[in-house]
């Protein structure tokens, strides 16, 4: 049951770590590394939203609505742990004026090895890598490079019915996941028009986020 999975905060830690490595490795391949902690969290959130279109198993739907973008405290600790165990590197830390330390991660030598063996042995990992490749390609050069604060414009996170400090939960009830509805709509309509509807769908979706952010 989804309830039981989410009731143990770190039960998905392994998957999150794998996703983080695949994500940062893919960003590095596309020349977007290092990724700031905020960017990693937003990418993980969006990947989770679009997972089913790439036949990737969704991880968890519960996100605490707090701050300007989706943030998973347990994942942050795992990122830091991976950074000091050689899987990731901390290229720099923003000791920023906003009161938060913001490390920027790139893939480390151990991480490269882990990522390689994941892709070699797991079809699911390949699909996950594909998902992140499309997502990163669609986001960077656009909103994510300059602003990770998608909170206000995200259909789920920004939903006015969910108050600050409450949980955004769309994993158990797929029909309540508005992001997914939008993405499905776009992908289904693009299927007859474009050779790779998933890629175009993801791009179109990220365009929408970009435009929406610009409108704020």
């Amino acid at each position, binding site marked *: 049951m989804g*309830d039981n999975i*989410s*009731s143990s*905060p770190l039960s998905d830690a392994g998957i999150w770590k794998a996703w983080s490595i695949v994500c940062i490795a893919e960003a590095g391949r596309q020349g977007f590394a290092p990724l700031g902690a905020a960017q990693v969290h937003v990418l993980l959130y969006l990947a989770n939203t679009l997972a089913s279109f790439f036949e990737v198993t969704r991880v968890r739907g*519960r996100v*605490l609505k*707090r*701050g300007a973008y989706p*943030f998973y*405290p*347990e994942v*942050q*600790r795992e990122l*830091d*742990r991976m*950074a*000091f*165990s050689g899987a990731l*590197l*901390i*290229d*720099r*830390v923003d*000791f*920023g004026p906003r*009161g*938060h*330390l913001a*490390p920027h991660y790139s893939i480390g030598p151990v991480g490269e090895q882990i990522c390689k063996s994941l892709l070699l042995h797991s079809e699911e990992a390949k699909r996950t890598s594909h998902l992140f490749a499309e997502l990163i390609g669609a986001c960077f050069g656009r909103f994510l490079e300059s602003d990770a604060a998608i909170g206000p414009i995200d259909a789920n996170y920004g939903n006015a019915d969910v108050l600050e*400090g*409450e*949980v955004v939960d769309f994993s158990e009830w797929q029909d309540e996941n508005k992001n997914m509805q939008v993405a499905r709509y776009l992908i289904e309509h693009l299927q007859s028009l474009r050779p790779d509807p998933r890629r175009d769908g993801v791009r179109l979706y990220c365009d929408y986020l970009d435009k929406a952010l610009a409108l704020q």
Partner: protein
Amino acid sequence: MINFPIYERITVSGYALYPGTPESVGLNHVFRPGVNVIVGINGLGKTTLLNILLRCLTGPTDVPQGEELGEKKRRLLPADRHWFRRRVPDDAVNASATAVFYVGEHLFEIKRSLANLDILSLSIDQQQVSLTKPQELEAAYQSQLIAASNLTSFDDFVFLLRYVVFFLEDRRSLVWDASAQGDILGILFAEQAANRRDYVEIFNELLSKDSEYRNMQAVVNKRRVEYAKQSSTIAGGQIEMLTQQLDSARDEVRQLGQRRGLLVDERDSLRNQIENRTRDIHDERASMANELNNFYESFFPKLGDAGRYLLSHFDVESGCLVCGNQSQEAIDRVNAKLTMNTCPVCESPIEHPDNPSHDPHAGEAIEAKRRNILKLEEQLQSMLGPLKKADEDYASTSAEYVAMTVKAASLEQQLNALGQSIPSAVERRDRVEQQLTTFEGALAQIEVERIALTEQFRGIAAAIDREVRSVSAQIEPAFARFISGFLAEDCRIEYTARQSRIGQRSATESFPFPHFIPALTSGVNRNSATPREAGQSVSESQKEFIDLAFRMALLEVAAPNQPAMLVLETPEASLDSVFVPRAADLLRRFAIRPGQGGNTRLIASSNVNREQMIPALFGAYQDQRFHGQVMDEPSQTTPPPIPPELRANHVLDLLKIAAPTRALERFRVPYEDERDRAIYPEQFP
């Protein structure tokens, strides 16, 4: 006073069994007062002739069949109309019997077809009844006969003939049949007319009510069983039970659902709080680490971003990012080294310990943050217990909810399966209930009617009992006198009204029915006469004579100053040598009466044999010495013998009249010789 039929003459013509003689065709016989003997041998038609005598009087009717009258309705049943036809080869198409008899002062002459017993002609007191249809003639005959005999119905007439007058081989027991006795005593001695008719009607009606009641009771019982079955199975109990169970299961599912919802809310809210606390702690630490940055920069000016990031995690007490150790001990160890101005990694002295720096432990703001983090962590810890409990509650409630949902679904399925049969089953049950009510009503109605009839019958039964009891003092000695002629045992009858119910139901009232109980001594029980109520406790021949003596006593008492008639079939059959003259003597005394009873007829059939019954009946018993030894009565009171020259008139000789059997054809001379020896013993000294 009842008038019995007294035969004057019988004529049978056209019946192959009795061709007659060339001088006189057919059978034509005049019965004389006193003894009349039908003489014959086996197969000559003695029994048939006696039956003709009976059927001429009764027509095609008879009393109910069977050993005993018992609980049968007191009404006549059709007799076998073709009994005579079957005994002759020509189907008796032209055969008829004409009976001439007196009933009281009225002379009846009735001619019946022997093919079907229809009345062909009827004259009463020599007046021809001018009707042609047999049914009309029968009706006229019966009504005239009832009037002449002083009886209330033709049924009573036939009952009397069957139970008193005719003592044939197929006779009915009277002494041993309590029901028949009660009826015959009622007919003979109770007040006639209305009472008797009511008696029979109410008696029959009570029997009908009894049988109706029992039939209805059976129907009611059957319906009750059916109703109970219908109610208890599908239509009633089971569905109701399932519905109740389903309702309660649904109720429970609803309650569990509500509880589950509440638990989900509670759990989610706890989880929410925990996540918020986690974020609070994270934010506090991040903010504190940021403030500590300057401190580390001054301590380790050459330290890169990652190193400072690592160290700041120690100071904000989130543990070691390298090995993942989060214990307070490890944190304290690293912090102690920093406090001692040594490198936490290689423990070398720090190069510029005197440089002014921001003491991370000095600032109020930082201390406040530390306290806040501590407080938040405590809160977080205290939330974990309730969350765990809420999780467990939720899990167990969910399990109950699922189990109850499954149960409700299964009940619903059972109900649906029964669903199709519910309406028809309920309808059937209601229909049975309705029928049951109707039948119970009918049952109550029958009972009400029965009680009303019982009231009427009780009066009549009591009156009859009184009347018969009043004549019992005459019947008892008459019986004692007659039976002594037939049996050596001391035998007597005693009047004891029999209390009996009408019908087979046990819960109804009983009534007194007139009844004489015979009592006799036997070889075993010589000193006292013991009551022999049941016929089987007496030998067959004893039974017959007790019955005959009882009939004779009844006839004598019922018609003391009037002629009577008794028809007997071979009375010698069950008697030994000693009792032949004794019985004959009694029968003669009965038949030959002085005064107004002088017209009495005794008609007896007898076989030609050496039993001496025929001469004894004529008063011509030859062995006077033996006769004197066996007789009780003084011989001077004995009626005089019939003179030999008149005897032929008292004999109906079937050897002459009947169609001869093989035996007769072959041994005619010795048979006729034997016959003459029997009728005229004086001529054969």
